[in-house]
């Protein structure tokens, strides 16, 4: 039996990398953040006393059970949602409303259906007063980077899910935001496309000056992508642990079976699906009865 604390072991190279990251300036700082939704049925505390920092060019994943407030957190950081208490600072400035410094990629693509791929990517630049010519050059560069140079004149409804999400990523990045916020961006994609998109995102992240905060509920995805993983727990949403992923970079899919990867995954599983019966706190209504009524003939067995 391996030690439960294996996930904390870091090779020298990994440790050196984390030391280097911590040297960099802090881009995003969240201090004692609270979020309470007030509805007709009463108050829901979605987030309670959230604290963390993100350094420049760091890749941070946020993971947690459904309803723990992941989306609430990222929407607050994007400026799309107000918060009830605490502070959220980008470059030491409090976050107040959406702006181009904080790009966002949504699970539902949210491309503008009336614009071609090229115009979609150009949208942010045009809104911020770039001339058509400048914007055009930038956009072509980005479309090439995400491998869509052949689809510049296509409309969003002509693209596959993976392609749409690549457009969305390019659209956010062309604005040169300080941080890219991604809310389960690959959640709607099939496994294969998803794996491709993950590698692609890492490739992009490696090559440009961008900090990424990435929400997912897929443990493998979080470990594969992240430098650090912010684990939230539900009701109320609180930080349970911030894990430094000990899997060395550059990452590749073969590492999915490496000891560091498995140790980290074991730890995440222990945190998110604890063995005790706290489980039913998430979803109070759903319980599977131990004995079920039989609807088929006694002889008609499948096992």
């Amino acid at each position, binding site marked *: 039996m391996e030690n439960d604390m294996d996930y904390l072991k870091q090779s020298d190279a990994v440790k050196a990398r984390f030391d280097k990251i911590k040297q960099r300036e802090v881009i995003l700082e969240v201090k004692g953040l609270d979020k309470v939704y007030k509805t007709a049925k009463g108050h829901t505390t979605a987030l309670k006393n959230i604290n963390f920092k993100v350094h420049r060019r760091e890749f941070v994943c946020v993971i947690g059970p459904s309803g723990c407030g992941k989306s609430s957190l990222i929407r607050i950081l994007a400026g799309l949602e107000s918060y009830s208490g605490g502070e959220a600072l980008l470059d030491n400035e409090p976050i107040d409303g959406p702006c181009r410094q*904080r790009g966002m990629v949504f699970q539902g693509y949210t491309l503008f259906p009336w614009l071609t791929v090229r115009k979609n990517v150009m949208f942010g630049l045009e809104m911020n007063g770039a001339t058509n010519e400048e914007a055009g050059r930038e956009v072509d560069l980005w479309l090439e980077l995400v491998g869509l140079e052949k689809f510049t004149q296509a409309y969003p409804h002509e693209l596959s899910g993976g392609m749409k999400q690549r457009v969305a990523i390019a659209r956010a990045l062309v604005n040169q935001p300080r941080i890219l916020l991604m809310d389960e961006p690959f959640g709607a994609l099939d496994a294969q496309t998803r794996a491709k998109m993950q590698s692609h995102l890492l490739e992009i992240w490696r090559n440009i000056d961008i900090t990424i905060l990435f929400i997912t509920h897929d443990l493998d995805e979080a470990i594969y992508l992240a430098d650090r993983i912010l684990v939230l727990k539900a009701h109320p949403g609180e930080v349970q642990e911030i894990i430094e992923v000990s899997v060395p970079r550059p990452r590749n899919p073969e590492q999915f079976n490496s000891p560091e990867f498995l140790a980290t995954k074991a730890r995440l599983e222990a945190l998110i699906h604890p063995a005790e019966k706290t489980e039913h706190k998430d979803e109070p209504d759903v319980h599977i009865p131990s004995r079920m009524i039989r609807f088929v003939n006694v002889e008609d067995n499948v096992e």
Partner: protein
Amino acid sequence: MGLSNWFVVRQELSSRRKKGLAVASFLLPILLWCLVSYVPFIWHPMMKVSEPGDVDYFQVDMLVDKVTYRQELENMQEAGKALPTASPANPIYLPAPHAVVEAFYTAFTTPPAQRDGLWLHQSLWQSIQVIFWGFLISSLIGVPLGVLAGTYTVVSRLFEPFIEFFRYLPAPAFGALAVAVLGIYDGPKIAIIVIGTLFQQILVIANTTRKLDYSLLEAAMTLGTSKIKLLRYVVIPGVLPDLYRDQRILLGWAWTYLIVAELIGTSSGITWFITQQARYEHFDNVYAAILMIGIIGLSCDLLLAWLGKRLFPWNKSANKE
């Protein structure tokens, strides 16, 4: 290939089947009309006199109902006088298809009965102008106001409660008032069409605007779009195809107000033509004129639908139609 093949819920039909069904949807009522007109035992409640005999008030081509005819026939038989002859016929208000088709043609070729009267095409042109101005004025107010109400809650709360009330007031009720204010010519007619269309238009368009996916606005904001630019660069282009579709439907509503509108003040346009013809019992002309309105309305809509496909190539739902 059983019958069940035709009744799959919401299935896409092949284009041949679609065209076939569209033709059938017109052929069925026409077939029904032909049956009633040309097959004697289906309806034909009247007798058309071909020979009056000795009945003093009978005339050639006169329509009498069957009971009267039988009565007179018996009377003449008893009196030993000359018998009238007649054949079964439909009432005057149901002309046969061929008569209407003929009238459809002759309506354009016969000069107006009175010297100062109008040709049919002139009447139609009058009507089209009334519709055009009515719908244009209504749209100039209704579309911007609807979009604003759908975008900004303040505008919606300020205007919609009153509009919600006002739209229940029947437009024709304002006829006399409109004449008092705007005179007896085209003014009040246009006003009735505006009153009939505008209030629905604002509400319909506000609702359509509200249906725009809010996450598109959020996406635009995270890309640095200012609040003021959202309307121009996201809301309007986003709702445009749906707005266009709404306008098509609303134009249809405007047409339905035409007849009432044209009866106000001095009656004019196609309505004047129809009432004139009805007064002289030229029901074939009446049907021809009604048909004309239908044809104009439908071709207008088809044209707009076709144009819509060209205008919004990115709109999936419209391109499927």
